[in-house]
């Protein structure tokens, strides 16, 4: 090799290349206060609305009064799914909008490293988005989600993986169908909300719909959350259920992303991204 510029080995997964994807979006966020404020704005608004709703219910409902903050916890945890999914799809859309995908994929960057970079950005975006709402709930409503204790780590992990699975699948749709599929980035998660048992137990749903609920990792998490808050027990069976369904979600998400990526490479769509 005649190159004067020395490079690290291109073979195998590279933390440096994953870091490059994170760095690209860190620079973008650092240079745009509007993006950071927008990230934190919606979770904070949701939390404030549901905080007042909770205060109303506490004085009118013995069920909610038994576990103050159950609705707030549900709001904050559900937002983790939404932010985790958006963290992936919006980072991907930033590349799509800036017509940068071709530049990225003529480098040694692998699709797997790109997906891992998007996941890392998803964690950062979720922290920026949900963090202020979590902290704001403490002085406003005297509710700290950290009171859930160690189970919070399990809930967070399960919900993040669910968001990643949906996010990667949506990226696949955008790769396959282009800008016309952008609305999936914002709409898809809401399709899961009615059957995820966020604000009510799965048993509230009609019998024929309950099997669909148990096909979402979130249903296990929110049942588990209520078990912690009402009964003060951690349900391992629900955690295992969530992780099994999570494995299916992430497998489907990865498969759809890679199938769409292969399709884009066959049809020249990596060169034709953008508006």
């Amino acid at each position, binding site marked *: 090799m005649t190159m004067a510029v020395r490079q690290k080995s291109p073979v195998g997964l590279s933390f440096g290349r994953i870091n490059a994807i994170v760095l690209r979006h860190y620079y973008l966020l650092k240079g745009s206060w509007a993006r950071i404020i927008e990230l934190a704005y919606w979770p904070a608004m949701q939390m404030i609305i549901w905080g007042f709703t909770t205060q109303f219910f506490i004085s009118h409902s013995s069920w909610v009064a038994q576990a103050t903050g159950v609705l707030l916890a549900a709001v904050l945890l559900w937002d983790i799914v939404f932010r985790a999914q958006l963290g992936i799809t919006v980072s991907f859309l930033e590349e799509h909008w800036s017509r940068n995908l071709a530049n990225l994929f003529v*480098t040694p960057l692998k699709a797997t490293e790109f997906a891992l970079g998007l996941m890392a950005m998803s964690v950062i975006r979720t922290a920026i988005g949900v963090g202020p709402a979590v902290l704001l709930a403490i002085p406003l409503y005297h509710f700290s989600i950290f009171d859930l204790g160690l189970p919070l780590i399990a809930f967070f992990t399960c919900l993040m993986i669910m968001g990643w699975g949906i996010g990667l699948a949506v990226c696949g749709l955008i790769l396959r169908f282009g800008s016309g599929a952008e609305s999936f980035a914002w709409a898809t998660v809401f399709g899961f909300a009615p059957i995820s048992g966020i604000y009510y137990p799965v048993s509230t749903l009609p019998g024929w719909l309950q099997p669909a609920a148990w096909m979402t990792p979130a249903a296990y998490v929110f049942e588990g959350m209520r078990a912690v808050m009402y009964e003060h027990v951690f349900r391992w069976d629900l955690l295992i259920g969530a992780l099994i369904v999570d494995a299916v979600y992430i497998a489907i998400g990865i498969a759809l992303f890679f199938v769409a990526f292969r399709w884009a490479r066959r049809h020249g769509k990596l*060169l034709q991204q953008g508006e």
Partner: protein
Amino acid sequence: MMAHTAIEVDGLTKRFAKVTAVDGISFSVETGTTVALLGGNGAGKTTTLAMLLGLLEPTEGRVQVLGHDMRHERAHVLPRMNFSSPYVDVPHRLSPRQNLRIYGHLYGIRDLGARIDTLIGDLDLKDFADRPVGSLSAGQRTRVALAKALVNEPELLLLDEPTASLDPDTGDWVRSYLESYQKRVKATILLASHNMSEVERLCTHVLMMRKGQIVDRGSPAELIGRYGRDTLEQVFLDIARQQGHAAE
């Protein structure tokens, strides 16, 4: 070890549904030379470059770059090549320095800070190195794109219309820089262009494309002589309008 042939293309074909964008082309590019892909809009130049880069899977045919098969050994080749096109942007909200840092990481460049400083100096980016790329003029953006394309000091540089939409002064500056880079690194350059004077100045060999096929090839002087014309532009027009005789 440096291969004698930088690019070897054999029977390369790309079909999109019923449209054949590239139709069984074969050519090779010797190491250390600058070769042009010439042709009108829709001739298949960009599609050919995309297949050489591995951005697009060929329908048929074989591409070997720097001694490696692009279908199975891209990971070995991509660190040694790079590309620039006016149709592919670097992120506009980031500064040239930030873009170079990201691409430097993607290429795994050691001593990246020093490399970025060198590029900023060589390509005269200092005055706007920390301004968003979106706020720069077309000429400044072209220099940033070129810096991105050179961040790994590639042995093989693929350029799609490198001076499109540039004023004559900036276009001349880019051509001079490419000439000096090619001489210094002994790099191989394949460029797709509509600019005949650029091709005459930079290229030792020309591949003339029309409707996805290579219809003629040779040095600029050979082509001008073969078609009995005074300039490469006249040869281009003959071929584009299907007048003069194509080589066998």
